[in-house]
């Protein structure tokens, strides 16, 4: 689903766009479920963080991005990659560690990106990408360009130093960036109340005289409206904002976490009743924008799309270990720069040649 400039904020006015939003949420849901399954089959290694239950908070805001905007998200990034329009096969291939993956197999689940679509990752250090997102906003400002930056992160990132420094810089320099806290109430196994002196996270913005706002993250239309408005403000007035979207993840922090030790079954059940997809389906039905057959067709379509992606990713080749050093440096003369560092092994590991025998 490509982003287009000048999209109507009220997506319900356009039946096709409305359904497109639903389809993306369904695609994310299906992709994440299958990713979980593929992880248990050991086709995905390392970390794998799923956005099941958070589709509205993720997709709703990304849907507002325009062609000149940039997106930075945390390691729970599969939804972002799908939402900007990257091919599910390429995303799955990255999870599988294949050469055709969006990062060539070098990043994995946490480091997805799509430079052409201005999706700049996929970041593994909690809060680490916030200053970098500010830098992108700085570059936009520097070049007097039109865009804005959407920076998504979790509630856990609001207590680390980089959060404070990034928000302060964005505010003091008046940069076009929207900081979106996807508050799913838990940072790993720690609740927001436990970790934060001010658990109403949007209120933190006042420390920087920045606009702060909270919406129901499971209401995709509310998320979309707020983000769209704040991004426009950022673009036009070059002013940052902090948007808190409250949601809930149905799974644990990652595939390695059952999410049961620190949450009650009742709580999870209660949130399932507020499943963002179900809620949006209800809204669409209410407006006669969605027939049952259409819903089934969409579900089948995304299921097939994900199955195809898995098949394609599974068949793709793995990266060549012979190219291990190719992406460490990028300047065109890096090989020459390093030529005198080691005659045999390029970067200081065990010398293969017995150059000392003469």
């Amino acid at each position, binding site marked *: 689903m490509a982003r287009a400039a000048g999209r109507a904020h009220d997506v319900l006015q356009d039946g096709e766009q409305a359904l497109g939003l639903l389809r993306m949420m369904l695609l994310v849901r299906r992709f994440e479920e299958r990713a979980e399954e593929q992880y248990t089959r050991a086709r995905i290694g390392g970390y794998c963080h799923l956005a099941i239950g958070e589709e509205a908070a993720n997709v709703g805001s990304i849907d507002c991005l325009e062609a000149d905007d*940039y997106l930075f998200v945390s390691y729970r990034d599969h939804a972002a990659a799908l939402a900007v329009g990257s091919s599910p096969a390429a995303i799955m291939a990255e999870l599988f560690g294949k050469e055709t*993956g*969006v*990062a*060539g*197999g*070098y*990043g994995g689940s946490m*480091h997805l*990106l799509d*430079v052409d679509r201005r999706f*700049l990752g*996929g970041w*593994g*250090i909690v809060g*680490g990408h*916030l*200053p*970098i*997102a*500010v*830098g*992108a*906003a*700085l*570059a*936009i400002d*520097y*070049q007097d360009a039109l865009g804005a930056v959407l920076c998504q992160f979790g509630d856990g990132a609001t207590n680390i*130093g*980089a959060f404070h*420094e*990034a928000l*302060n*810089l964005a505010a*003091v320099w008046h940069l076009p960036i929207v900081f979106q806290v996807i508050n799913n109430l838990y940072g790993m196994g720690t609740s927001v109340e436990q970790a934060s002196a001010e658990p109403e996270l949007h209120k933190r913005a006042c420390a920087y005289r920045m606009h702060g706002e909270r919406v129901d993250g499971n209401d995709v239309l509310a998320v979309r409206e707020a983000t769209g408005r704040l991004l426009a403000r950022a673009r036009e007035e070059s002013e940052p904002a902090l948007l808190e979207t409250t949601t809930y993840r149905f799974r644990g922090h990652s595939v390695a976490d059952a999410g049961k030790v620190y949450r009650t079954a009742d709580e999870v059940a209660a949130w399932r009743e507020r499943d963002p997809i179900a809620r949006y389906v209800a809204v669409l039905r209410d407006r006669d924008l969605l027939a049952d057959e259409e819903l089934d067709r969409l579900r089948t379509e995304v299921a097939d799309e994900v199955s195809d992606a898995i098949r394609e990713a599974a068949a793709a080749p793995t990266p060549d270990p012979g190219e291990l050093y*190719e*992406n*460490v*440096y*990028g*300047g*065109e*003369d*890096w090989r*020459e*720069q*390093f*030529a*005198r*560092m*080691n*005659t045999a092994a390029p*970067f*200081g590991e065990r*010398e293969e040649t017995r*150059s*000392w*025998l*003469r």
Partner: protein
Amino acid sequence: MAEVTYREALRRALDEELERDERVFLMGEEIGRFEGSYKVTAGLWAKYGPKRVRETPISEEGFVGAGIGAAMLGLRPVVEIMTINFILVAQDMVVNHAAKIRNMFGGKVGVPMVIRTPGGAGAQLTAQHSQSLEVWFAHTPGLKVVAPSNPRDAYGLLKTAIRDDDPVLFVENLVLYNVTGSIPEPEEDFTLPLGRAHVAREGADLTIVAHSYTVRRALSVADRLARSGFEAEVIDLRSLRPLDVDTVVESVRKTNRVLIAEEGWATFGVGAELAARVGRACFDDLDAPPERVGGAEVPMPYSKPLELAALMLEDKLEAAARSLLAECGLVEAG
């Protein structure tokens, strides 16, 4: 040729690169109106304005990260960290982000950024303000680290660093800022390649390897040794990553004796790295094992006599050199 201080050489390089490429811009604390805490950026804010010479709050993690983000979008930030001691609060940005971005994203995006910062000690600035931490970064794949020892090299290397497409840590030195030397005229567009050491002094009796301010100490010690009849070859590494091992090896094959000197702590330092590489490449060429000497492995104390005892001064370097020569049967007659 112009005769300028190291500081002025840096300033000229920045000025010329700002002029040459509008993607280049500066960030750092006090670099604007205040003209830089060490006056390296004097006059640049007045000339280029606040957009291109951007002052920052005390927020190293924040503004180093911002530099990274701007670089990912194609700008060429030159970020100043007031002294290398403060880079530690931005360590995550430098090591976990700047160094990793190109590789972890499969080569699809890079970070053409320079971080300039002075290291070194000697003015009773005590423990937290007297470190030489460049090896922490030379250890890290994805970064490049340079440490010029004189105005000409500073000028040429900074221009190259700014034009380089990878993150470069440009290590200056507080004492070096006042050292003078000649630099080429701007029309020559003089640059120096990374990864090439310089033989600052030729000699046949032993090789002394150093970088940054220590090169000057080494040259001074070489003069002392010459009065005893021993000719030291002094190698100015200039670049720590990439490291010009070949130049050092060629020298040791000639002199058979090598001493690596650094201002920082020798343990896990530049000397440790070169001793290992030279030990292997020159196994049959050595007259004695490689020797290394560095600062005392203590947090730098305040009181002057304590500081003097801890610094890697000429006397300490000379003693190490003479000890190495003595191990090889070369002792001053009489």
